[in-house]
């Protein structure tokens, strides 16, 4: 028995098994660290991308810039996607008691899902399309994204357009995109809301108001 234990082959096998176990542990360690790093990277990239303007707002911006050419520069351009909105809602609920905010704020926070805001100024303008042609271009761009116009208003130098998705039906996930163009200033707001909390807020307020008769 002792002879077998000290046999060179047995010694070699024992050494190899020990090395293999260490190698196995290292592999798991590398995989775990790699996996966690990848998850963290995906999370932060998703979070960073969540602050870009959404597709609908960009489509409107692109169509308006094409129909009203000139040197447009952004004054404000910000998107708050679903992930940061969820983080904000979660943080709000965790620290709600410490923040001295009115109760209506809770409804607003609960309703918020995502939003994009863009404000642009045109410095130098080239010949623009007619308002009708501009509306048509923007409608076409949004139609390609399955959105349709519900309201269009034009008066003087001001144009306003409101779009909603063609299949809008879910009050927990309501979306709308509004653009306002006045001379050389363009404002685009696109938002996604859960309307139920807002409805609850409106109902609680309406019961205190006299209805017109």
């Amino acid at each position, binding site marked *: 028995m002792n002879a077998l234990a000290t046999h060179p082959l047995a010694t070699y096998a024992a050494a190899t098994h020990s090395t293999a176990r260490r190698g196995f542990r290292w592999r798991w360690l590398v995989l775990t660290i790699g996996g966690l790093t990848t998850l963290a990277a995906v999370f932060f990239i998703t979070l960073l991308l969540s602050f870009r303007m959404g597709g609908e707002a960009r489509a409107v911006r692109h169509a308006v810039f094409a129909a009203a050419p000139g040197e447009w520069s952004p004054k404000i351009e910000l998107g708050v996607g679903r992930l940061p909105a969820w983080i904000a809602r979660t943080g709000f609920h965790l620290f709600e008691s410490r923040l001295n905010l009115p109760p209506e704020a809770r409804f607003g926070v609960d309703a918020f899902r995502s939003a994009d805001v863009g404000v642009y100024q045109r410095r130098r303008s080239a010949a623009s399309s*007619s*308002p*009708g042609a501009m*509306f048509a271009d923007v409608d076409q761009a949004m139609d390609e994204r399955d959105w*349709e*116009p*519900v*309201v*269009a*208003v*034009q*008066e*003087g*130098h001001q*144009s306003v357009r409101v779009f*909603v998705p*063609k*299949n*809008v*039906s*879910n*009050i927990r996930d*309501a979306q709308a995109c509004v653009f306002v163009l006045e001379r050389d200033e363009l404002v685009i707001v696109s938002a996604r809301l859960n*309307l139920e909390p807002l*409805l609850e807020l*409106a*109902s609680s307020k*309406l019961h205190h108001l006299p209805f*017109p*008769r």
Partner: protein
Amino acid sequence: MRTFQRFAASSAIALACLSFQVFAEEPSAGFVDFGKFTPPSGGGQFVEVNVKSPLIGMVIRLTEKAEPEVADLLRGLHSVRVNVIGLDDANRAELGERLLKIRAELESKGWERIVTVQEKGQDVGVYLKQRGEEAVEGVVVTVIEPNKEAVLVNVVGDIRPEKIALLGEKFGIDPLKKLGDATKKKS
């Protein structure tokens, strides 16, 4: 295997054609296509509202608890379209002709003119498309005020006259009350 593949492909094509058939909606009898309008070149007023059934359905769900009568009226609607076009020297003649053409088309398609008002430079026409004696499938309102604006409204759906009058009374909206009374008298 080839036979199965052919069978699967032809079934998929047949299903696609069937679903296209099912989902290809025919416009309702109460729908009127006014065509496209463009904003007046002189910067006058232009308003276009085009609300279809998915959005109406969402509004119904939002209002049914707080305002059940409003939700009940909206429940029958398929679409609401409103056009307000400011009139100036460039578009007055063209829009006037277009409105007259729309009115002639409505009358030729069996729409009934139930309200005619011509006063203070305003020419108002209200048309109904009825289904039997009890229900209205569509309402069209045309208003021309040559020095101001042209207005076209098309409401499509199952519109009950008593509900229109009820809404007019509840909210104190005279035109709705008059429209409801006029449609009640007609039916």
